[in-house]
């Protein structure tokens, strides 16, 4: 069975480490915050200028001056700090963020990512995504493995305009956890009940399968 959005977030959360500063993109990556293991401390960076993002506010706590990068009202966690946008991107571009999780339309065997623009459709912009993929070393891309019509999104070459070049090493899809190295995809784990054959069929780029590929454990 393909993973649900929540399961994708849960699996990403297993990659968190105590003391990590983490930037979570909009969509599925945001859900990762719900699965931070107990007894682990993780601080969330929001690129509009907040380190230590807390949960959503109650009606009484709502403050128009306190939002996240998705423009949602939020609160601050204990030990939070506030800074301007240049400072925020100094953290991101300077490689100070330990883990970045973001979505994508396509990735390819060379670690290229396309996530912000579909030509001919409305173009809204890249926001901070280009800075995030260029600045971070440890990035996990979350995405669906293929379109509804079975067209692979894990490609030999991205077809859409790139967000970043050669910067992606880990991809978690609804079917598989994949590492990108030496110009190839490497299958690390499968979603429970999904066969290696099914994953190969839906992966356009070359996929290396070594030995018995374990199922994800939640």
């Amino acid at each position, binding site marked *: 069975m393909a993973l649900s959005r929540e399961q994708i977030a849960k699996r990403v959360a297993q990659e968190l480490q105590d003391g990590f500063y983490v930037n979570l993109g909009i969509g599925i990556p945001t859900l990762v915050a719900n699965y931070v293991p107990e007894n682990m401390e993780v601080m969330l960076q929001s690129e*509009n200028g907040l380190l230590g993002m807390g949960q959503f506010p*109650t009606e009484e706590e709502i403050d128009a001056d306190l939002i*996240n990068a998705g423009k949602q009202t939020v609160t601050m966690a204990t030990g939070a700090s506030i800074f301007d946008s240049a400072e925020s991107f100094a953290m991101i571009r300077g490689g100070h963020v330990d883990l970045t999780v973001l979505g994508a339309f396509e990735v390819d065997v060379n670690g290229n990512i396309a996530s912000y623009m579909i030509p001919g459709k409305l173009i809204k912009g*890249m926001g*901070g995504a280009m*800075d995030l993929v260029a600045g971070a070393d440890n990035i996990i891309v979350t995405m669906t493995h293929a379109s509804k019509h079975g067209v692979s999104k894990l490609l030999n070459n991205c077809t859409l305009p*790139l*967000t970043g070049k050669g910067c992606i090493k880990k991809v978690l899809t609804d079917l598989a956890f994949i590492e990108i190295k030496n110009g190839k995809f490497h299958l690390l784990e499968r979603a429970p009940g999904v066969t290696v054959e099914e994953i190969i069929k839906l992966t356009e780029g070359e996929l290396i399968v070594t030995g018995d590929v374990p199922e994800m454990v939640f």
Partner: protein
Amino acid sequence: MAGFDKVVSSYEEAMAGLTDNMTVIAGGFGLCGIPENLINEIKRKGTKGLTLVSNNCGVDDFGLGILLPARQIKKIIASYVGENAEFERQMMAGELEVELTPQGTLAEKMRAGGAGIPAFYTATGVGTPVAEGKDEREFNGRDYILEESIVGDFAIVKAWKADRYGNLVFRKTARNFNPMAATAGKITVVEVEEIVEPGELDPDQIHTAGIYVDRLILGSFEKRIEQRTVRPSTTQGEK
């Protein structure tokens, strides 16, 4: 006004000298920390052909979006746009020029502009449409592109508190692009929620020094919320 006193008493005075085809840098992220009354004044003045530099372009009836119906904006340099229908229409019709710029590059363009640095190299955008036509150079085995900084004829800024000398304090994430915008305007206009006497702000707690500020005005603000997300107050809610 005398000496270092930057306070002006009307929005007309605050935006005096803004003329057609100028470049205006605006602080704010989404609708948070935007100089809403200064934007209203630009609308009232009817200044046209403006190049706007701002992370976003507001919504249909609030923020920079209100400058769209009368076609006051010629070009916008932003990282994320299209939260309003009129923007989309003008962009698709080719009536509005849009230069999409990565958010960190945009912040750095303002910061560098205000600091007298004409351009800088960054890894952001290498190999993407953003790199087209830009100088590329390798440092320590990695590719970087050259990005030019931005200086505005005007910068419009929203801060929380100021003293009469224009020393500014921002509040929470309403800070965002405002401090960089403040440095990057030939004329920097700031609107605030409270003005105190010089000496009342702790010098250690000032975010932007008054040297960057030309005009200061006391405003009242709607502070519209774009995405109102709440958790129930009766339970612990989600983490």
